[in-house]
């Protein structure tokens, strides 16, 4: 087929143009706008395009906002670690230990199904679970593990972490199980024949080969947790204020400039996090 390269390229551009236009207009320009507005002048009810650093100074001069920056980073790190620690063994079983393809597909589907239900309902479902008269406390008291209900379970930072871990765990399990499923069983067989124990095989072969999955999972979880606010406000009783919560409350009181500052800070943090993860593994080569 001797189609001139120029023709096919221009057809391609015709096909891609609407998509590119959409993303430029409704994603790139809006994000650039957030950066721009973060330097606007804020008066009581409106913002004006006179450039100033006032909102940035307000953010970095306030303990409330700096605390929320730290809270966001802390919760992100804890949830990231928790999803990895809790999700990895599951991925290991699904991706490597289950020999039957059907069973491993079924298990993955079982893990993904909760993702198919409403996000807010999944958050809400933790309330009757963690409350003072909630299911966990009832079970613990029934078995005599605790005498009095643990009140620290709900409306604390802990409840936010538990909720987020459950909601985002799936995004860690999926990519890791996928990478583990691609490991050639012969390699493991060979090292076992050569006398390597499981722990050694895990450290030297299984974990390194699953690393691209861990990185993809970590990027998913990080981006979602850093941009979170709903779980924090629904499960912490408004005690935990993430950067996302600050954006929502500031917009609520028409402080668009400060909300934009927080938006820019969030974007910067995410950019740093994602590029650090990508430095660990060259995804394009590995996938």
């Amino acid at each position: 087929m001797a189609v001139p390269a120029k023709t096919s390229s221009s057809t391609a551009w015709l096909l891609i143009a609407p998509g590119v236009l959409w993303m430029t207009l409704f994603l790139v320009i809006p994000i650039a706008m957030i950066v721009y507005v973060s330097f606007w002048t804020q008066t009581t009810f409106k913002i004006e395009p006179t450039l100033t650093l006032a909102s940035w100074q307000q953010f970095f001069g306030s303990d409330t906002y700096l605390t929320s920056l730290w809270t966001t980073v802390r919760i992100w790190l804890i949830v990231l670690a928790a999803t990895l620690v809790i999700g990895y063994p599951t991925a290991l079983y699904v991706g490597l230990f289950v020999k039957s393809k059907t069973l491993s597909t079924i298990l993955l589907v079982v893990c993904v199904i909760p993702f198919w239900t409403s996000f807010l309902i999944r958050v809400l479902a933790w309330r009757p679970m963690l409350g003072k008269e909630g299911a966990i406390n009832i079970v613990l008291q029934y078995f005599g593990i605790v005498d009095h209900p643990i009140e620290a379970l709900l409306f604390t930072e802990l409840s936010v972490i538990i909720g987020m871990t459950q909601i985002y765990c799936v995004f860690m399990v999926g990519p890791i199980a996928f990478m583990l499923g691609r490991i050639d069983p012969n390699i493991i067989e060979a090292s076992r024949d050569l006398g390597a124990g499981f722990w050694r095989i895990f450290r030297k072969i299984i974990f390194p080969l699953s690393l691209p999955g861990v990185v993809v999972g970590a990027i998913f979880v990080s981006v979602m947790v850093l941009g979170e606010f709903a779980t924090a406000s629904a499960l912490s009783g408004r005690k935990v204020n993430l950067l996302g919560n600050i954006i929502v409350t500031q917009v609520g009181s028409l402080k668009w400039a400060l909300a934009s500052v927080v938006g820019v800070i969030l974007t910067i943090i995410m950019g740093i996090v994602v590029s650090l993860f990508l430095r660990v593994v060259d995804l394009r080569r590995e996938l």
Partner: protein
Amino acid sequence: MESRILKPILAVYVALFILFLYGPFVVLTILSFQQGPEGGPQFPIVEWSTYWYRHIFGLTEASRVAPLPIGTSMVRSLTLAFMTMVTSTVLGVMSAQAFRNKFKGSDFVFYLIVLGMITPGLLTGLGVALVSRNIFNVDRHWWSTAFVSHVVYTFPFAFLVMLAILNRFDASVEEASWSLGVSPIRTFRKVTFPLVFPGVLSSMLFAFTLSYDEFSRTLLSSNEQTLPLAIYGTFAVEIHPNLFAFGVLTTLFSFSLLAVYAILMALSVRRAKKVAIQEEIA
């Protein structure tokens, strides 16, 4: 052998993991059958009843618990999800089709599109709100600003699904059809479309469910309430088991969508097999 011990331990672990994933929802379902209107959103179950389900549909006598404000917001959410589904599937098919030939700048375009699904909803919503307020000076509505920010999110999913499908697609089938003198439109209908149908269906399912459930993008980009916003609004005040009952119903709705998808998918696979058998006979 260590894996003899390890495997059962991991199996038990996975069972616990699944309990962790499903536990809260099971508890929520049980509590949705709480007695009403006095029964609260916690154990013990005073008496089993379907009161809170009837409460949602307004079939109970007025009580101190206000009905969930979901009527209009649900119509909005369904319409919005439908609009988003159509738009992002069309955009996804077109863009993925463009990617069948390598073109200049295709790497850049790929990342531009994928950026839409990894940008946090709050930032998309904030950005779109700022642009509409301060550049175009227009009001934010669920069918305008919220709609475009939903598509920013769902279009990448449709694009990636279609890309995966088209990568496996053998272009020589189409060429054979053209060279046999079949018109391009007929070729598309009879050859191309059946082959890409599973991808289109998956894109539609993704786009619809993601948009229907989308919360953080809508929060800042719409003045009116969609269903997730209406639900979120009730979190702030005291919650009642009617929210739980609603959670069960909306989950059933999502599952029925999934079931429709599975049936259509199975039908298309069967049809593909039938064609393959006919070819073999011929």
